[in-house]
């Protein structure tokens, strides 16, 4: 089972740049991520590339939530400083997750019957990691807004 989940993450890691490019193209035109439309393509591709690289690290970490908290607090801080509204930052993450899956499907990673069986476990683990990340980012935005309001 672990070998299969490893296969998905390895694929994401090895093709991080391609997936990041596809994501950037999507996020720059998607109606739910309006704030990204005028951002330079290289800049947002870099964000996704870094995200996919970090994703592998938390995926196999023995304390994924704690590791995700260390990494994605910084990510939330950066998006907050760029004045990306939280709902758009969240939707951009949703698209990042979808693009992992789309790329895996495109590369026919789940062709056989056995692989389909394992795909459920792999998908569940990916979703769990994204659940952690989304919660951490929403919480950090909340804390940053509270901090900013208390200083004014």
């Amino acid at each position, binding site marked *: 089972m672990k070998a299969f989940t490893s296969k998905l993450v390895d694929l994401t890691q090895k093709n991080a740049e391609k997936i990041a490019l596809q994501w950037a193209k999507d996020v720059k035109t998607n109606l739910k991520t309006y704030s990204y439309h005028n951002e330079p393509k290289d800049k947002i591709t870099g964000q996704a590339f870094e995200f996919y690289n970090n994703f592998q690290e938390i995926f196999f970490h023995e304390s994924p939530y704690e590791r995700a908290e260390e990494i994605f607090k910084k990510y939330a801080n950066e998006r907050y400083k760029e004045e990306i509204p939280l709902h758009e930052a*969240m939707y951009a993450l949703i698209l990042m997750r979808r693009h992992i899956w789309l790329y895996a499907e495109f590369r026919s990673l*789940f062709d056989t019957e056995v692989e389909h069986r394992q795909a*459920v476990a792999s998908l569940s683990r990916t979703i769990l990691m994204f659940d952690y990340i989304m919660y951490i980012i929403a919480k950090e935005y909340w804390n940053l807004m509270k901090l900013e309001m208390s200083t004014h």
Partner: protein
Amino acid sequence: MQSSYATKLIDLIESKAENIAKQWAADVMKHNRTPSYHSLPKDLVIEQGINFYRLFRQMSLADVPYEEAKNFSWKYAEEFYQQKIPLHEALYALILMRRHLWLYAEFQGIFMTALEKQQAVESLNRTILMFDYVSYQVTEKYQELTAEAVNSKLGIVKTFLIGKLIGGTKSIYKTGLMLILLIAACALTYYYHSTGTACLFTHLFYIPIILAAIWWGKKGIVVSIFLAALILVSHALFLNEVPFSDDIVRAIMFIVIGGVIGWLMESLKKLEGLYEPFT
């Protein structure tokens, strides 16, 4: 094939909505990432869960599932905003709702065969899509509600702003009005000082001082300094025999009041900027 499988899952969710909602409520009311739920009435929490699970069928029947999801999402966001539940906790509660749905389906053994496992991927993707819509809509609505609350609290101040806070498209009118008020202040000072008439006309100077602070923030202190200098110079020219002390106090008060209001308005501007992306 996918359709019949999806129907099977939807039927299970709908018929067992209350059971799943109860399991979710028990979890969310003691989970360490959702502490604000710990003290909520259990019935209210269960009702939220039931509404979420019933949404699954409503969305599957809707022509535009995204629009259908709004019926649930907006109500959910409004209820939890009113109860002052932080957004990240409301989102985590949604995550738990989705997990419990899946756990229940697994517990009921509807993914036993290899074929069902294959179809389960499709089903899981559908569940996630629904959740993605709901989490996006809840986040957007929650922020809208926060921004609306800030805007309504700023309402009275905004009435004075004539457009955008500090500066903005109508700044030419503000400058024009300020010039008129300053000319009037010069005329009043000249009239009352040159004739030696005792009148508390300087209280009227707080109108341009306050307006300048509201419109231009800290920069508005220039108006306070100008008016302070005006009464002191005028005093020196026309009221030699009267002690300076009263006008010195007035001049200091102009600058203090202008400075404090200007500083407050700058803070207000930053607060408004904080919520601007959501409005």
